């Protein structure tokens, strides 16, 4: 081979190379965090511990992440996988994969154990020493979400997606009859599948997303007991002791929904941005329900019966339309105007036919057919205009006005003793103001104010005449010291006759982050938040409708601190790091509580790729009004971290 050919071979690839390009070598990065946790015995209430913390002994994959780029582009350009807390009651995983310009896929998974058995909740027998929560759950909720997008980043990009949300487990629920209610076991199983597909059209001046989706839903709760149960009634009724000997309940709800969504953005000219959105869904549910119970039940009017059997069939439909239109206009390089309109209309219509048979100890059975239609209609609209003025390059002022209005119509609850529908109205003017001040690169603060004045609101505790002030300031005092302050004040009053609602929520916090020398040797993060909530409202106390007052107070201190220290070591690689800190929560008021979680951690890296650690954490929870619900426990965790 002569020299000129060699030269040509050497030059051609270089000349043909289109300038710099992204890295094309195959690269794989990842970390694995494995650990084993020991928990001490839990002095106190184990059910409360499980309801609040729920971490147990055992081997755990605490974290796993994996990143791969493939230069060959046979399958993908980039692939990322995360998994977190496998073995614990709360675990997640996520996969992201992409081939640039061709497709992008993500799959998200999470599993959350939902255990809730707090003896102070839903427990009519508490004063008699019973520690049974009659609305308790030991469930698992799982959530899958996946989406595949073709031609991401291109002008026309179609996508399809699927998500599944499911729950299953068991619990305790009352079997409610007239005159008594009986806590019994229940199994719960529900599942919602969502299928969706659509297309994104992205152009230089406008964008349109069209999506069509469908949802399928089912709920199959079952209740069964064959144990004699005296229920919550403590005294005989008309000389008879009510009891439940056997009960079964089966809920079988099947639902489906088709929905459409369209989103449009445009910038017809440089100074104008437009945004429009339209959403329509029409979920509907088919209902099948049956129950039967044997025992002694009260019917009313001094009559008792022994067996009940019910069968119900019904349907509910809920067309729901939402639309939004917004625009941003830059009148001047320093002046911007926002205008937005939003409307939301929902109409729930249902009908149910219940056939109920009652069997008596003596006499013929009675059959009742009860047809119950029901309606709930809600129309809500909101219009908002904002003006933003950059007074100087560092100061932006904003002011605006929002008007919210709506109406609702629904059937009164049968217990209210009236057949007339209830109607509600919402009319609220809200003034908006704010300032954004960037004094220096190292100092910035932001203030937001909302003041509302309502002529009518839906509920007694809704926002009515209110003021809300929110502030945030950041100071980079030194290169190594950052301070952040937060402030919130919400004052809400409804002085209408018969309401007399007064709420004040005040919270302020200060955070500090100190990391001299980039935190190589020492770093500290601390945060303290103080909050005070006061709510006063009158209500009608049953059974005589006497006027009574409901006072709620919550005065809380929350602090978090983490101090990190690199321990002295003569070794180049083995540089242990010690972390000490934790969180503290302390509140007084209507339900005082103390919840402490101090922790310490020692991390010892043996190389750039291998480190071990030991972690100690303490959980302590006490409530002065519910001492039986406290717990405390130590957790000790040893782990190994490997990185590629």
């Amino acid at each position, binding site marked *: 081979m002569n020299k000129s050919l060699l030269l040509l071979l050497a030059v051609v690839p270089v000349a043909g190379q289109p300038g710099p390009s*992204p*890295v094309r070598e195959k690269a794989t990065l990842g970390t694995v965090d494995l650990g084993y946790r020991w928990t001490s015995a839990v002095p106190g209430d184990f059910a409360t511990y499980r309801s609040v913390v729920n971490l147990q002994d055992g081997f755990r994959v605490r974290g796993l992440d994996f990143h791969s780029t493939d230069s060959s582009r046979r399958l993908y350009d980039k692939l990322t996988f995360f998994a977190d807390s496998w073995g614990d009651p709360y675990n997640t995983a996520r996969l992201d994969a992409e081939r640039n310009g061709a497709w992008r896929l993500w799959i998200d998974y999470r599993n959350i154990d939902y255990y809730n058995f707090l003896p102070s909740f839903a427990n009519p027998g508490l004063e008699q020493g019973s520690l049974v929560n009659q609305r308790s759950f030991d469930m698992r909720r799982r959530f899958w979400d996946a989406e595949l997008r073709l031609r991401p*980043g291109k002008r026309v990009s179609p996508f399809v997606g699927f998500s599944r949300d499911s729950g299953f487990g068991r619990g305790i629920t009352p079997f409610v009859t007239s005159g008594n209610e009986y806590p019994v076991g229940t199994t719960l199983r529900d599942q919602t599948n969502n299928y969706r597909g659509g297309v994104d059209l992205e152009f230089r001046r406008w964008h349109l997303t069209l999506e069509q989706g469908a949802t399928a839903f089912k709920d199959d709760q079952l209740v069964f007991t064959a144990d004699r149960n005296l229920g919550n009634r403590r005294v005989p009724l008309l000389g008879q002791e009510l009891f439940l000997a056997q009960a079964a309940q089966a809920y079988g709800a099947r639902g489906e929904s088709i929905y459409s969504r369209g989103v449009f953005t445009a910038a017809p000219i440089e100074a104008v941005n437009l945004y429009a959105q339209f959403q329509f869904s029409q979920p509907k549910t088919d209902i099948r329900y049956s129950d039967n119970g044997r025992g002694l039940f009260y019917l009313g009017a001094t009559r008792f019966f022994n067996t009940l059997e019910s069968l119900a069939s019904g349907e509910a439909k809920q067309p729901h339309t939402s639309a939004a239109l917004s625009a941003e206009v830059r009148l*001047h*390089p320093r002046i911007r105007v926002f205008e937005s309109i939003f409307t939301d209309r929902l109409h*729930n219509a*249902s009908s149910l036919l219940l056939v109920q048979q009652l069997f008596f100890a003596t006499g013929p059975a009675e059959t009742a057919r009860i047809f119950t239609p029901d309606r709930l209609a809600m129309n809500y609209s909101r219009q908002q205009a904002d003006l933003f003025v950059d007074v100087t390059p560092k100061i*932006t002022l904003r002011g605006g006005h929002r008007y919210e209005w709506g109406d609702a119509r629904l059937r009164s609850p049968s217990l209210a003793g009236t057949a007339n529908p209830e109607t509600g109205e919402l009319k609220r003017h809200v003034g908006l103001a704010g300032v954004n001040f960037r004094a220096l690169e190292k100092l910035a603060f932001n203030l937001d104010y909302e003041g509302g004045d309502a002529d009518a609101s839906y509920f*007694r505790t809704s926002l009515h005449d209110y003021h809300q002030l929110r502030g945030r300031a950041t100071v980079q005092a030194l290169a190594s010291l950052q301070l952040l302050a937060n402030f919130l004040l919400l004052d809400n009053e409804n002085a209408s006759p018969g309401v007399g609602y007064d709420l004040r929520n005040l919270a302020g916090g200060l955070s500090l982050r100190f990391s001299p020398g980039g935190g190589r040797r020492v770093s500290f993060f601390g945060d303290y938040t103080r909050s005070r909530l006061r709510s006063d409202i009158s209500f009608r106390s049953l059974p005589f409708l006497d006027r009574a007052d409901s006072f709620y107070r919550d005065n809380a201190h929350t602090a978090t601190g983490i101090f990190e220290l690199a321990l002295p070591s003569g070794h180049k690689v083995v540089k242990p790091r010690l972390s000490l800190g934790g969180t503290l929560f302390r509140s007084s008021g209507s339900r005082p509580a103390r919840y402490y979680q101090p922790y310490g951690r020692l991390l010892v890296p043996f190389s750039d790729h291998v480190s071990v650690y030991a972690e100690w954490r303490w959980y302590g929870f006490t409530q002065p009004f519910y001492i039986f619900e406290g717990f405390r426990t130590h957790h000790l965790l040893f782990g190994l971290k490997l990185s590629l």
Partner: protein
Amino acid sequence: MFDTLLRGRPWRLPLFLILAAWAPAAAAQEAAQAPYAGSDSCQPCHEEIYSSFRKNAHAFLDTEKGRGWAGRACESCHGPGAKHVESLAAADIRNPAKLAPLEADKSCLECHRHQATQVGRIRGSHARNLVACIQCHPIHGTEKVTLSPHPAARINAQCADCHADVWTSFQRPHSHRLVQGAMSCVDCHNPHGGALIRNMRVAGANEPGCLRCHGDKRGPFAFEHAPVRLEGCQSCHEPHGSVNPRMLVRHETSRLCLECHARPPGAPGALGGIPGGFHDLASPRFRNCTVCHIKIHGSQVNRDFLR
């Protein structure tokens, strides 16, 4: 939609249209374009950033001819760099990190304005409070600090950097499992904004975002509980954390219910009629309303949510 507009403040519409018509005249003129230097000119001095950027999602701009930035990915955000390459002066190159948020966002929105993720931007509280894109999205990041951070714990840490007061709420005994890393702030909130208040996400097309995980509360129910539809789950729950069981906003269930259900029959005022008079609140049986009204989120069978 049109009558919705007029029912509010009808005078706003003509005013708004007039202002919109003026806008083009008031728009800023584009600065004269300086010459570009090309991405490889940046490498010698900014080797570390250059290398990490090669693994970043934006690196494709260097090879993507359709976007118009082939060979000039750095300058797609930093602007023409020839003058800076010549003088090496920081003043001669655009640095989005040091610009006012609106200015910094301009370069991002040049490409990302018309994308599905940005559709709620105009109404979003981040845009209103001038939080620049680069405050959350580290543009020079590698895989480990990606533009869209995962897992949940990393997202939460990022949000807590500014919203420390909200993060402290999750230290309360009853809260969603964010501290445990099973959920993240963006599961419920869309940081880019949306039509709903507090940047709340939606499930499906327009159902409350809470129903993405709490599908059993979705309905529609034969008998709806109005607050769920009218004001959402926050009517009764404090989703960021509470001292009360079930994240309720009151310590006693009866108080929570009766604060609303206190209107005498026939009396004008807010929704929520008084329940029948046979409940004796002196008895513990009746102080736990949800022991009997078990389907309080909505019932398929009973108007009073008893089954």
